[in-house]
């Protein structure tokens, strides 16, 4: 029974983290057709930012979260304008530009904070005992905040004018341009939203993980698997896919022997199995250029 709760908590938390990351990744892919490898690097930068503000400047973690999200969003928009926007028509070049960006961030962080493992104290101390299992308040907060963020994002995309512009640009860039939507500005704003989401995820997850400059690679792979599993450009798909893979990982870690090594393998195998049956993912949308 206690094992079940452990699996549930671990699955819910990694699922909501992956959902937030995947939604951001799939937003910028939908609008600007950018496969942003640096997406989780922004998540890492935000996590380090919080460490810096709380541990070195000793400012309250709540403020630190705000500062981190704003700073990283700015960083994302600036690097988009400088490095990605001028070469957006060349897909291969954009791809390796984002890889190079991610490498650069990783190196800057390891130069500034060295490669050692760091940790950030949790926002609220203490725990709750549910059926003999410790459930830390921090875990509950992370989960609730993630759900709230997904809800807010859904509202933003479905109910506001800017959200409508983003959705229509991702459906058909040219027609959206003809309808008077400033496509390049929408792309910039989407980049901001997407990086902001990554930063927010980083901010939420940081008390539960250890900080190190390579912490962006595993989430990157899982996030890509989620996006492919759920279908590119589909919010519902990313949401569902994230929980499927999150739970798959948790199940393998807790139940299988050598689980920690195999967790990535099993989750990715699930993704491939689903793709064999449905090549466009669970809720895939056909994009205009792909036929």
């Amino acid at each position, binding site marked *: 029974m206690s094992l079940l709760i452990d699996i549930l908590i671990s699955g819910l938390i990694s699922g909501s983290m992956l959902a937030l990351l995947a939604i951001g990744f799939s937003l910028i*892919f939908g609008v600007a057709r950018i*496969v942003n*490898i640096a997406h989780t690097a922004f998540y890492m930068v935000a996590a380090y930012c919080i460490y810096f503000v709380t541990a070195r400047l000793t400012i309250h973690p709540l403020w630190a979260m705000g500062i981190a999200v704003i700073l990283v969003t700015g960083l994302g928009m600036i690097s988009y304008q400088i*490095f990605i926007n*001028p*070469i957006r*028509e*060349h897909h*291969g*070049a954009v*791809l*390796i*530009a984002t*890889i*190079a*960006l991610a*490498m*650069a961030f*990783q*190196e*800057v962080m390891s*130069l500034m904070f060295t490669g050692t493992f760091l940790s950030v104290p949790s926002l609220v101390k203490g725990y709750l005992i549910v059926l003999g299992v410790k459930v830390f308040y921090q875990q509950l907060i992370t989960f609730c905040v993630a759900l709230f963020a997904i809800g807010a994002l859904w509202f933003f995309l479905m109910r506001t004018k800017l959200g409508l512009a983003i959705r229509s640009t991702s459906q058909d860039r040219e027609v959206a341009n003809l309808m008077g939507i400033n496509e390049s500005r929408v792309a910039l704003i989407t980049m901001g939203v997407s990086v902001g989401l990554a930063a927010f995820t980083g901010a939420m997850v940081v008390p539960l993980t250890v900080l190190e400059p390579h912490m962006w*690679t595993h989430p990157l*792979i899982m996030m*890509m*698997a989620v*996006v*492919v599993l759920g279908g*590119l450009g589909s919010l519902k798909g990313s949401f569902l896919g994230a929980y499927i893979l999150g739970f798959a990982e948790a199940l393998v870690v807790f139940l299988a022997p*050598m689980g920690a*090594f*195999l*967790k*990535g*393998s*099993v989750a*990715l*195998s699930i*993704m*491939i199995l689903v*793709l*064999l049956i449905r*090549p*466009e*993912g669970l809720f895939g949308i056909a994009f205009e250029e*792909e*036929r």
Partner: protein
Amino acid sequence: MDLILFYFRKLLTILKNEVLVLPYRIAVLLFFFILLFLPLWMEDPYLLRILTLTSIFAILAASWDLLSGFTGQMNFGHALFFGVGAYGAALLNKYAGIPPWGTIPLGALTAVLAGLIIGIPCLRLRGTYLALTTLAFPIILLGLVFALPGLTGGELGISGITRLAKSRITSYYIAVVVMLGLCTTMWKITDSKTGIIFHAIREDELAVRASGINTTRYKLLAFSLSGFFAGISGGLYAHFMRVAGPSTLEVSLSFQVVIWAVFGGIATIYGPVGGVFLLFPLMEVLRFWQDYRILMFACIVLFTLLYMPDGLFRWLREKTEKECPRCKIRNVAFRDACRICTAPLD
């Protein structure tokens, strides 16, 4: 005797009229000569080692280009072929005792098998889906490698493999000659009818299918050819380093291949080879500033791409050559009239 003289004169004519008229052909010729004759006056073991590794990775980058550049099947998991080749060669060498000249081709055949296994499910996927899915395969295999430490050596890999050759210079020559041979083969493949079909599949798969060509077969062919060449480079790497470790399957290697190839210019073969020969030694030069090495590398790649998004070597070629508007033959940029049909060049 006359026949030999005839062929010699023919060779000279070709050299004079076809090779020496274009700067990039001269560059390729020089590249061959320098690589083949370098050990005659440079016997620095460090330099030879770097060049051997560079040649091995050049095969890998060119094989990525064959699959992803030409056929457009974006492969983010190219390390899979490299790793399977390396582990295949290492296992065959260690447990079956086969010498390197046998294990490297056999390892490459295992990589072909891997290419077919991932190629068949991936045929249904396109573009970004394909790219993100192929990323998964080496990671799955890496998980298995760590989970079966008895067979694969886990974290440490398989060590104690036979040396590629007795001396450093022999290993250098094996790697360089294999690299030059395979890259020429790949270039010939992409220049043949099959290569044109590969090009066409990238541009418009539906149109190719409408022309009565079985695109599935050609895509699988591209997967297995690319897997074969990458597998050979993996086997060479395992025998040269005398260890086949998890680093051959890592995501960073897959990304590195993409960086080399796109930096040099995709769909050219010479681009990725040149990219490796610039960037890999560059990483070694940057060792002087050990801490800033990867940061500087990333910045160099970023800023080069800003000005040459098509790749460095494509950019260079565009600047030094122009195409005759009438007969479509390439000329040096400073010529006023085409060298074949004397049409004025603009």
